C-alpha cells in the first residue's frame, strides 16, 4: 500500500516537474526547435534566398568545371595561401571557388577569406544579393541573436537541459507509453490536445532524446567548462588536442606546384566514378604544398572520405600520422562526442533521410507547442465564475498566440525581406534578421490588444497569407516562376516554393478551424425560438434544449 502511495507521489512529483520544466523555457525551446529544424534545409533556403546564382547544368563534367574555376583562380587568387574548388551537387548546384588572401597589416593582420560563385557559361563571378540565408536561420537555434555567443550558448544549454528534464519526466509519467502509441482521438477538445502531444512526443522519442542530449553535448564546453579546466591548465591545449588536425605548415621555400587540372586525373584514378565534393590546395607553390580531395558522398555518419596528395609530385600522402593523432585523442569520450554531434547535425543524410530528420524536427516543434497549449487549456477548463482566470493563465495564453503563431509570421517576414529589401542595400543581411525580430516583437505584443483566440486566428491567417504570397512575389521581383524552375529541372527552387504554398494553405486551414471551433453556439441577439409563455418547468427545459440544438 505504502509502495503504491510512494509510486503515486513520485509520479505526481514528476508530473509537476514535467509541467513546469516544459513551461518555463517552452517558448525558447519552440524557437530553437523550429529554427533548428529549418536548418536541415539551410542550403536549400540559401539557394532560394540568392536566386541570381544559376544552377550548373549537368552537361558540365568535373574536368570542365575544374578548368573554368582554375582560370578564374589564376586571375584573382594570386598569392593565396589556400585555394578550393567546390563542385555542384544536388543540394547546392553551384560552382564555387574559395581562397584565402595573405594576412596584411592594414587588415588587422588577419587573412581574408573570399568566396565566389562562378557562372560556368561566362567563367565570371556572380554577385548575388547579400543575405543572411538559411545558415543564419539555423544558427539562431543555438547562438540566438543580439547577444554575445557565450551567453547565448549558456541560455540554449539551459533550455536543452530543461528539455531533457521534460522528456525524461514525460516518459516516467506516461504509464501506457507503448499501449497509447498510435492513439489519437480527434474532436475531444483537451483529450485531443493531450493525444496529439503524446503522439508527437512518443513516436519520434529516440529523435527527441538524441537531439536534446547531443545538443547539450555540443555546448558542453561552454556550459560545463570545469571538465576541461580540471585536467588542462589552458583551455586551448584541450581544443588543440581534440579538434586540431596536424596538417603540414608552409615551409617558406618556393617550389612550383601542379595545377588543379593536372591533379584531377590523379584523384579520379584513385576514385574512379566518384563525384567530388571539393578539392583544395594548401600552400600552393610552396615546398610543402599538398592537395586534399573529398568525396561527394558521406562514408557513414563520420564524414567524407579524404584523399591527400603531394601538390608537387601528385603522389598520395599517408594519413597515418593523422589517424594516429585521432586514435590518440579518440579513446572513448571524444569518439562519442563526434558521434553525437554528427547525429545532431545530420550532414551525412541523403535527401530521404534529411526529410525524415525534418519531419521529426517538426514533430518536436509540435510537441513543445502542444505542450504549451495544453498547459493553458487544462487551466482554462477549470475557470468558472467562482475561480476566474488568473493573470498567469491569461499571460500564457497570449504569449502562446504571440510566440507560436508569431514565430511563423516572423520567419515569413524574414523571407519576404529577402525579396523586398533593395538588392544593393548595405548591411542587407543584418536587416533581414532585424525584420524577423521586429515582426516577432510585434506578434508578441499583438495579443495584448486582442483576445487570445482572435490573436491565434489572425496571426495564423497572416502567416498563411505571407507564405502563400512568397512564390508570386518572387516571380514579380526575380522573374523566376514555378514553371521556370520546373522546366529548368531546378528542383530545389521548385520544392521551396511549393513548400511555402503548402505551409501557407495549412496555416490558413488551421486558422479557419480554430475560428470554427471557438465560434459561439449562438449570439445573444439571435431569436431562434420565442420564450415559452407557459410557466411549466418541463416545457421550459425542453424548449431551452431545442434552442441549443437549433443553434448547433
Amino acid at each position, binding site marked *: 500500500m505504502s509502495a503504491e502511495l510512494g509510486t503515486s507521489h513520485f509520479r505526481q512529483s514528476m508530473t509537476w516537474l514535467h509541467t513546469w520544466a516544459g513551461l518555463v523555457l517552452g517558448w525558447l525551446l519552440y524557437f530553437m526547435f523550429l529554427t533548428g529544424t529549418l536548418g536541415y534545409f539551410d542550403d536549400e533556403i540559401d539557394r532560394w534566398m540568392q536566386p541570381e546564382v544559376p544552377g550548373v547544368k549537368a552537361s558540365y563534367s568535373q574536368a570542365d568545371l575544374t578548368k573554368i574555376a582554375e582560370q578564374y583562380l589564376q586571375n584573382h587568387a594570386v598569392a593565396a595561401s589556400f585555394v578550393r574548388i567546390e563542385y555542384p551537387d544536388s543540394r547546392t548546384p553551384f560552382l564555387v571557388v574559395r581562397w584565402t588572401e595573405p594576412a596584411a597589416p592594414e587588415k588587422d593582420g588577419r587573412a581574408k577569406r573570399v568566396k565566389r560563385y562562378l557562372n560556368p557559361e561566362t567563367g565570371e563571378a556572380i554577385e548575388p544579393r547579400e543575405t543572411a540565408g538559411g545558415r543564419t536561420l539555423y544558427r539562431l537555434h543555438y547562438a540566438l541573436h543580439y547577444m554575445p555567443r557565450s551567453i547565448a550558448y549558456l541560455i540554449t544549454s539551459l533550455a536543452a537541459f530543461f528539455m531533457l528534464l521534460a522528456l525524461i519526466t514525460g516518459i516516467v509519467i506516461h504509464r*501506457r507509453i507503448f*499501449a*497509447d*502509441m*498510435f*492513439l*489519437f*482521438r*480527434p474532436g475531444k477538445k483537451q483529450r485531443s490536445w493531450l493525444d496529439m502531444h503524446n*503522439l508527437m512526443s512518443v*513516436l*519520434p522519442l*529516440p*529523435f527527441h532524446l538524441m537531439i536534446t542530449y547531443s545538443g547539450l553535448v555540443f555546448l558542453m564546453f561552454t556550459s560545463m567548462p570545469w571538465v576541461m579546466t580540471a585536467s588542462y591548465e589552458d583551455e586551448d591545449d584541450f581544443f588543440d588536442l581534440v579538434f586540431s588536425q596536424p596538417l603540414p605548415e608552409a615551409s617558406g621555400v618556393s617550389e612550383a606546384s601542379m595545377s588543379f587540372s593536372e591533379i584531377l586525373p590523379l584523384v579520379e584514378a584513385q576514385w574512379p566514378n566518384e563525384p567530388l565534393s571539393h578539392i583544395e590546395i594548401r600552400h600552393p607553390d610552396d615546398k610543402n604544398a599538398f592537395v586534399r580531395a573529398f568525396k561527394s558522398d558521406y562514408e*557513414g*555518419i563520420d564524414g567524407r572520405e579524404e584523399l591527400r596528395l603531394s601538390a608537387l609530385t601528385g603522389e598520395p600522402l599517408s594519413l597515418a600520422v593523422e589517424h594516429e593523432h585521432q586514435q590518440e585523442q579518440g579513446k572513448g569520450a571524444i569518439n562519442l562526442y563526434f*558521434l553525437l554531434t554528427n*547525429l545532431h547535425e545530420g550532414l*551525412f*543524410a541523403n535527401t*530521404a*533521410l534529411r526529410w*525524415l*530528420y525534418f*519531419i*521529426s524536427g517538426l*514533430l518536436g516543434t509540435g510537441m513543445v507547442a502542444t505542450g504549451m497549449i495544453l498547459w493553458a487549456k487544462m487551466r482554462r477548463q477549470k475557470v468558472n465564475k467562482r475561480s476566474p482566470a488568473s493573470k498567469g493563465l491569461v499571460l500564457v495564453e497570449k504569449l502562446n498566440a504571440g510566440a507560436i503563431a508569431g514565430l511563423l509570421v516572423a520567419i515569413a517576414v524574414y523571407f519576404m525581406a529577402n525579396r523586398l529589401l533593395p538588392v544593393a542595400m548595405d548591411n542587407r543581411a543584418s536587416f533581414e534578421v532585424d525584420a524577423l525580430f521586429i515582426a516577432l516583437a510585434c506578434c508578441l505584443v499583438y495579443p495584448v490588444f486582442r483576445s487570445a483566440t482572435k490573436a491565434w486566428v489572425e496571426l495564423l491567417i497572416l502567416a498563411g497569407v505571407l507564405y502563400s504570397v512568397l512564390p508570386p512575389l518572387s516571380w514579380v521581383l526575380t522573374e523566376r516562376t514555378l514553371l521556370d524552375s520546373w522546366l529548368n529541372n531546378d528542383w530545389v527552387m521548385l520544392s521551396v516554393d511549393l513548400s511555402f504554398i503548402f505551409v501557407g494553405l495549412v496555416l490558413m486551414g488551421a486558422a479557419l478551424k480554430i475560428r470554427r471551433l471557438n465560434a459561439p453556439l449562438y449570439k445573444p441577439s439571435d431569436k431562434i425560438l420565442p420564450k415559452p409563455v407557459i410557466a411549466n418547468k418541463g416545457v421550459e427545459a425542453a424548449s431551452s434544449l431545442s434552442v441549443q440544438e437549433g443553434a448547433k
Partner: protein
Amino acid sequence: MNLSLIFAELLAIQGLCLLSLIMKKHQKLLLSGLTETQTLQGVLQGRGREVTRWFAFGLLLLSAILFVQQFDIGIGLTYFLGWLTLVGLVLSFLISYYSVLGLPIILLNTLLLLVSWVAFILQ
C-alpha cells in the same frame, strides 16, 4: 530503384500495422460499433494476439537489419527510426479519422511486399 530498401520500408509498415491492430485501446475506443468477430483483434484472442505481436516485432527487426545492411549501422538505424516515426504518424491519423482497422493497409502492403519480393528475386 533500390528494391531492398523498398522491401525494408514495406516490412516496417507491415510490422507497425500489425502492432496497431492488436492494441486493446483501439478496439475499445474506435471500434466500439463492431462485434468482436468483425475485427482481427476479435479473431486474434489470447495466444493468437501474442503470436501476432511477436510476428510484428520480428518484421520490424528484419526491417531494421535490412536498413543497416543497406547503409551502415549508424545511418541504417537513423533511417529506420525516422521511417517508423513517419509511418506511425500516418497510421495514427488513418486509424483515428477513418477507423480503417489497419486491414486495408495490411492487405495492400502485403501485395506490395509480394511484388517487391518477386521483383527482387527476378532482379
